[in-house]
């Protein structure tokens, strides 16, 4: 790109930023005016109400369960889709079809799917599971397909050179290259899905988010604080455990 073109690019970027800031009514003054209210909000949460810990824990467990079932089903559905969406394992028509399908469905986030499924099957954790399944399937299929495309051809050729059958080549040349990566991606999505599932309750799709939102709506701040603390602890524990396991996989 020419020098002048690059300058024009930076100026355009700055213009878009300023225009967006004005449109979104960004204001330092209002932020400062809001500070006492933020402080008041936090102060009302202290001390957290321990009597709702039981509810919060039940909600937290349900959130993890939504993430477990949603991620598990998605991991299975993503397998054939991943191979279909990899350039080196799929004919062109299937590859382009699968890629386009994944891109369309990945454009919408889990929370939007949750709204759709709550309307379709009613309130509760089940629409949450469905929402996690749809979004996670598209993301995992994309990640799987990239791992399939990055496979090393050398070891595959070496297994073929021993006189192995097609299935044996798949089992000993391809699978060992893919399985640890697939597991690692799936665990990573599970982590993200615990966080996603935690807010699904805001739209009526079960889990701890339901309690956080209900307590806030009832202006019961100490109870909301308990639920939030349980949520934070939950996310931290899951992230820690999952990243430890992932580090051992690759």
């Amino acid at each position, binding site marked *: 790109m020419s020098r002048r073109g690059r300058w024009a690019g930076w100026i355009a970027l700055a213009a878009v930023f300023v225009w967006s800031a004005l449109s979104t009514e960004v204001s330092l003054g209002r932020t400062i005016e809001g500070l006492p209210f933020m402080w008041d909000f936090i102060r009302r949460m202290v001390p957290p109400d321990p009597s709702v810990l039981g509810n919060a824990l039940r909600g937290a467990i349900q959130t993890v369960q939504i993430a477990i079932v949603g991620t598990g089903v998605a991991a299975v559905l993503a397998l054939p889709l991943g191979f279909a969406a990899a350039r080196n394992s799929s004919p062109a028509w299937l590859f382009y079809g699968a890629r386009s399908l994944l891109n369309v469905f990945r454009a919408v986030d889990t929370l939007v799917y949750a709204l759709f499924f709550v309307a379709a099957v009613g309130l509760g954790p089940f629409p949450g599971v469905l929402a996690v399944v749809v979004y996670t399937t598209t993301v995992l299929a994309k990640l799987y397909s990239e791992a399939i495309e990055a496979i090393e051809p050398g070891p595959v*050729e070496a297994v073929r050179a021993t006189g192995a059958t097609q299935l044996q080549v798949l089992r000993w040349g391809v699978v060992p290259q893919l399985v640890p990566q697939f597991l690692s991606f799936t665990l990573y999505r599970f982590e993200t899905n615990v966080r996603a599932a935690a807010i699904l309750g805001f739209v009526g799709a079960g889990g701890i988010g339901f309690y956080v939102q209900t307590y806030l709506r009832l202006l019961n701040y100490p109870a909301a604080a308990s639920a939030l603390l349980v949520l934070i602890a939950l996310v931290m524990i899951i992230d820690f455990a999952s990243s430890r396991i992932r580090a051992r996989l690759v």
Partner: protein
Amino acid sequence: MIRVRGLRKDYPGGPRALDGIDLDVGRGEFVALIGSSGAGKSTLLRCLNGLVAPTAGQVWIGDRLVTGASAEARRHIRAGIGFVFQQFNLLRRLTVLENALVGRLAHVSRWRSLAGWFGSDEVARAEAALARVGLEGVAARRVDTLSGGQQQRVAIARALLQAPAVILADEPMASLDPALAHTVMELLRRINREDGITVIASLHVLDLAQAYGRRIVGLSRGRVVHDGPPDSLDAAATTRIFGAAAAGSGAGAPA
């Protein structure tokens, strides 16, 4: 043992890789295949075990015709030919033992091998092969924790476990430093002498070819331009193989 007639290979859009190769290799020979990169060494070796299908010509291994054979027949032929690669081509995340056992895939029950169950006699056989290439006590380690020289020996153990009549080695020492290169070549020579396995090793380093090959075949632009014992490799032959630029450097490594 190996008979090649009029072998030609054209890659679509590329230059002709093999341009009419005729070659006979007897049982138990140790042939060093030399030539600059792009001379067709890798393609020739891959045509011998059917990994690459030639455009024209015939290859026999023993009394079996490789070229034009069915996929299943070529698979059986490949089972009797070990192949050692420049980049080792091991499965990085598997153990040393598992990588060695890959050499047994054509010999064991297919369904058991898919489940990863080889049985104790196969494991013992693999451990013996690993010991033979000088790798004892590392069977349970992940193969990518080994040094390059050790990894190439795992690859040689894998080839040995096929119980092959022929081992083809494609620049087996090109990724190793000179001292290790000798270890690997020495190992191939021992296997050749002790087991009577025919070895064809492609090399781009002249002194290694002369030290280990009992017969030197020179390739240039997909043709055999030299064929004879190590001492027949004079300046004229070197020029034919590597071009005029390399002739002055004698037995050194041509660039």
